[in-house]
């Protein structure tokens, strides 16, 4: 077991979480887009202390992302408009996967796309790469997280994640394109969030994660225009936590899939709230910017809480509400 944590082996509480065959040593997963591919934070603590890492969102082809201002601080939150800047899946497989092979934590590829075909082809590339490595006894990717919040190029930019039937097509195609475990990341802007999650279950997803950022806006009243070239941007951070927790609770009550909850988590107590709401594990995004040690400290904090409250396994409190 990874060192550096409190408690003797016998007293150490059981923090393992599972999505199908994939076991996370603890529920703390770093959220896509906030943790690069892990290298940057690897100099601050041992990434092996994390439950998992979801890498920066990838698309088939490289993308430059959005022009203009990309971040704006709001009350206890931030708006971002990175716009899926990424090196493309082939570059990821070549440049980052060798590093990912060395990580002692669950490795999640966050997959985006502008068309159903692009999504599916991206999934096939990742799948093919995984098979090759598998044959060589190596592994770099444990799970695909499908980000359906991407704007649908063909539907004029409306995100796939809004309408269940638009999203179904993406989930079905990607499900068919890979044998890797599949988690679908839901947007809080979904018209029917619970229906969306149920659709994922129907289509054979192994888990759902939520919430992605909440669409928000900031106007510069002096310039009389949006701060962001892209008009709207995505809100994250503590401001959204009450909303995220409620959504996670609603979804957990209505699907039989493991749910990975996120949105504004910035303390071990916050993590436990999501677990009590029914989440199998959580993701931590914006809090990394507040505290570079976020991952290690949350993982340790959860154990401390469990010891203090006499909780031997997270399953004792999961979904208690």
């Amino acid at each position, binding site marked *: 077991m990874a060192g550096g944590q409190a408690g003797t082996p016998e007293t150490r509480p059981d923090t393992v979480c599972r999505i199908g065959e994939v076991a996370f040593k603890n529920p703390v997963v770093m959220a896509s*887009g906030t943790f690069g591919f892990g290298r940057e*934070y690897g100099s601050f603590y041992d990434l092996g202390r994390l439950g998992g890492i979801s890498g920066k969102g990838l698309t088939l082809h490289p993308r430059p992302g959005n022009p203009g201002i990309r971040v704006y601080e709001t009350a206890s939150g*931030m708006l971002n408009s990175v716009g899926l800047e990424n090196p493309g899946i082939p570059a990821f497989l070549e440049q980052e996967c060798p590093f990912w092979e060395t990580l002692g934590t669950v490795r999640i590829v966050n997959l985006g796309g502008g068309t159903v075909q692009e999504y599916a082809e991206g999934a096939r590339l990742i799948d093919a790469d995984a098979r090759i490595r598998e044959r060589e006894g190596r592994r770099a990717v444990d799970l695909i997280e499908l980000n359906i919040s991407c704007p649908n190029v063909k539907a004029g930019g409306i995100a796939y994640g809004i309408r269940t039937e638009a999203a179904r097509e993406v989930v079905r195609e990607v499900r068919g394109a890979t044998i890797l475990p599949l988690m679908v990341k839901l947007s809080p802007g979904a018209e029917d969030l619970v229906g969306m999650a149920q659709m994922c279950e129907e289509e054979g997803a192994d888990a759902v994660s939520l919430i992605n950022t909440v669409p928000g806006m900031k106007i510069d009243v002096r310039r009389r225009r949006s701060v962001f070239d892209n008009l709207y941007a995505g809100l994250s951070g503590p401001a959204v936590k009450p909303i995220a927790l409620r959504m996670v609770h609603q979804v957990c009550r209505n699907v039989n899939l493991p749910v990975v909850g996120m949105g504004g988590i910035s303390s071990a107590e916050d993590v436990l709230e999501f677990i009590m709401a029914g989440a199998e594990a959580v993701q931590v995004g914006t809090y990394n910017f507040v505290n570079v040690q976020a991952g290690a400290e949350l993982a340790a904090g959860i154990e401390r809480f469990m010891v203090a409250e006499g909780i031997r396994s997270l399953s004792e409190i999961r979904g208690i509400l």
Partner: protein
Amino acid sequence: MAIVISNRRTAEGIYVMHAEGRFEARPGQFFMVRGWGGYPLLSRPLSVYDQDETGVKFLYKAAGEGTALLSRLRPGDDVALLGPLGNGFPLAQAQGRVALVGGGIGIAPLYYAARHLERADLYLGFSEEAYEEREFRALGHPVEINLGGIVLDTVDFDAYDTVWVCGPEPMLRAAQIKSGLSSGRADVYLSLENRMACGVGACLVCSVGSPGGRRKACVDGPVFRAGEVVLA
């Protein structure tokens, strides 16, 4: 966590904070600074104004909520420092005649930079009141102060081999244009002040366009060759 040694007002709304700790910052590098708990959410990037064995100094302007909170820290208070971060100025390339041009609070990184140079001409522009003038003059370099004008206009790029510019965005844009027009040999570098979140290269919110693809202001910068970045 670092401890505040001193935090003095040096001019209207301008402060110098001295924080304890042994750092190995190079000129032009910065720290993500945080003098509070969870609110405001993001840490604030501040350049290294000076550094010695006791700690690091920041010269900063109380611009908004975060820096106003910083200005209220008193000796003995905690301040969280993440850094040093970024590439810093290319000291090795600072050959021949060197000009350092700062606009307003953009003068902050130039003091520590000048301390590392044998000789540099310092051009410091302020909209109203000059600050830290005595400190800059004490470095022994020629210092030209410009009040209320356009400090860039007073610098003849063609007379220099190296020009480092730090200041508000319009000034950086002007410097970029000027360096493009300049017939001379000057190697012009700009220190950008893009908004940042992580400060360590993980989030891409500070990304800046460049002919060779996107660059991250926090790790590939904040100092870039003038021709290397596409300013908004």
